[in-house]
């Protein structure tokens, strides 16, 4: 039998019983659609998180005070129980490392912010002029904190878009006086609205010079230091330089934790990719169930078409030809189901994106290929038993069944 004839014959056989064919294709379609939609969801979440992290700047080393031990409590953790604070002088010292382009110390706290009788509580970040470039902040109005050196506690403030709206409304904010805690500031800049962000929402931030924030919160320590390396490849070198400088300044104690953006992103990437795989696996179970349905339905088809099989044998069909005909039918049904499933799946993913615009819920191509391949493999795999049964039918008894 020529391949084209085989396909045509299988197609005619399949369309000969529309209900049976339709149900089987539907089962396959649901399985494939599940794989596509669920992986789109998983991969969308992964991309969302990775994009968010990358928007924070990808060649950053983040310095945290204290050492995070992952080995539980041991001698080491007990002996280094006193951690030194990170200070502005530590931050300034890091600029000596040759791979470092700029640094931004962070001092954070909550404070009441008021202007013209309006008052709200806000997250206040004390930092330096380089913070804008390190975090890639855009300004809507005015300018960012001036470069005055680390130690100067000047009274400039840059506010987020939401703060501006809530405190000033339609009134001009630039140049306005602002009271933060018990200190007075002058607004010199307004950040561009950034929408959602991972970690902190810059729309609700008030930025002041680091030294001013330290005075306001009555502390000498820093929350963390953001260190920007010259390039991504220099990250490892910068990391060890930062560690050496701080160790030297802290009497030889390694009492800081260094995080690189890459490591954090990589971890999230791996976790979410694994999650996507797991979800795909669960969806694939529905494909296996569809495969069993294919087998069931094909077995019924063999029983229904026993007379036809007998006839084909009488007309000179070799057992192999009959096996191929039934396998081709199972494969065609699976393919049709998979095609419908892809359509459903892509529609579902598009719907997801419409409902959650921030989620890039595009099904990954590996999942589409795997979904198609699995449906075809299960369809054909579970079609083998019925096809073999058809091929082995005794023609005399099969013919006695009539058509």
């Amino acid at each position, binding site marked *: *039998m*020529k391949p*084209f*004839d085989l396909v045509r*014959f299988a197609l*005619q*056989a399949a369309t*000969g019983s529309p209900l049976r064919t339709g149900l089987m294709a539907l089962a396959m379609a649901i399985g494939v659609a599940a794989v596509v939609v669920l992986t789109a969801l998983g991969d969308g979440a992964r991309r969302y998180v990775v994009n968010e992290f990358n928007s924070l700047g990808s060649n950053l080393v983040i310095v945290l005070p204290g050492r995070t031990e992952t080995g539980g409590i041991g001698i080491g953790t007990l002996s280094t129980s006193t951690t030194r604070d990170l200070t502005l002088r530590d931050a300034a010292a890091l600029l000596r490392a040759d791979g470092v382009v700029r640094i931004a110390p962070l001092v954070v706290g909550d404070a009441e912010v008021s202007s013209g009788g309006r008052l709200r509580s806000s997250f206040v970040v004390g930092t330096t002029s380089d913070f804008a470039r390190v975090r890639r902040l855009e300004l809507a109005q005015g300018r960012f904190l001036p470069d005055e050196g680390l130690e100067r506690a000047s009274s400039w403030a840059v506010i987020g878009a939401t703060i501006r709206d809530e405190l000033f409304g339609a009134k001009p904010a630039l140049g306005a006086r602002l009271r933060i805690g018990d200190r007075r500031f002058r607004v010199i800049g307004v950040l561009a609205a950034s929408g959602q962000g991972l970690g902190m929402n810059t729309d609700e931030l008030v930025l002041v010079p680091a030294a001013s924030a330290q005075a306001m919160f009555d502390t000498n320590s820093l929350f963390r230091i953001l260190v920007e390396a010259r390039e991504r490849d220099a990250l490892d070198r910068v990391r060890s330089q930062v560690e050496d400088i701080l160790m030297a300044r802290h009497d030889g104690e390694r009492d800081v934790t260094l995080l690189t953006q890459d490591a954090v992103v990589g971890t999230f990437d791996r976790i979410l990719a694994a999650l996507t795989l797991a979800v795909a696996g669960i969806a694939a179970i529905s494909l296996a169930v569809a495969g069993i349905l294919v087998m069931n339905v094909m077995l019924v088809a063999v029983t229904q078409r026993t*007379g*036809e099989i007998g*006839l*084909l*044998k*009488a*007309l*000179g*069909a*070799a*057992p*192999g*030809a009959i096996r191929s005909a039934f396998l081709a039918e199972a494969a065609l049904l699976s393919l049709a189901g998979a095609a419908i499933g892809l359509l459903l799946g892509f529609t579902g993913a598009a719907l997801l994106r419409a409902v959650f615009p921030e989620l890039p819920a595009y099904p990954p191509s590996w999942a589409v290929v795997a979904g198609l391949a699995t449906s075809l493999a299960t369809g054909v795999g579970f079609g083998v038993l019925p096809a073999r049964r058809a091929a082995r039918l005794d*023609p*005399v008894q099969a*013919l006695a069944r*009539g*058509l």
Partner: protein
Amino acid sequence: MSQIELYEIDRIFEIGDSCVHALKSITLTIDAGEYLAVMGPSGSGKSTLLNILGLLDRPNHGRYRLEGHEVGALPPDQQARVRSERIGFVFQSFHLVPRLSAADNVALPMMLAGIPAGERRRRVADALAGVGLESRADHRPQQLSGGQRQRVAIARATIMRPAVLLADEPTGNLDRTTGTEVTELLEDLNRAGTTLIVVTHDPAMGERAHRCLQMEDGALRADRRR
């Protein structure tokens, strides 16, 4: 050398504990171009004999040579090839595939044999014209009368130009007039050189054959030639 040589063919069916001896040591030779009727009561082994001649069934003992080749012991794939190229079947209940048109039904053996579509179309048109159904090529079997269906089935059985045509009660489901027409069609094919072996209950058809085998209890009782 005869076209068909059966030598001491036995066919035993095991049904539960008991054995049914459907064919008992049948030895038979049939020459090319013969017109042979196999007659006998129900259960006499006529159909079993026909199935063995058509390679649909295997004898338990004995040898079957077709055109000088030992075909009874061939593996299934090669038997299928012999069926495809040398043997045509006509059944009592026509056995047309309901979802296929008359033309597609006739083309089925050629499709199974892998003959190209162009040649198939040509030969199908000739074959349908040969049985007087050229205008019914696109009809489904259920749109055809019994006599027309059997003529489509005969066109299908002869489309591969077989050497032997096996017919199992070909007129059993037809009225006398259409039955006679179908019989005449088969006899035309026989006159053109095809060996025709007909299993029948119909004494009139038995009378028309040039040679008549009488079977009883799985054995040959009589072998009359005219």
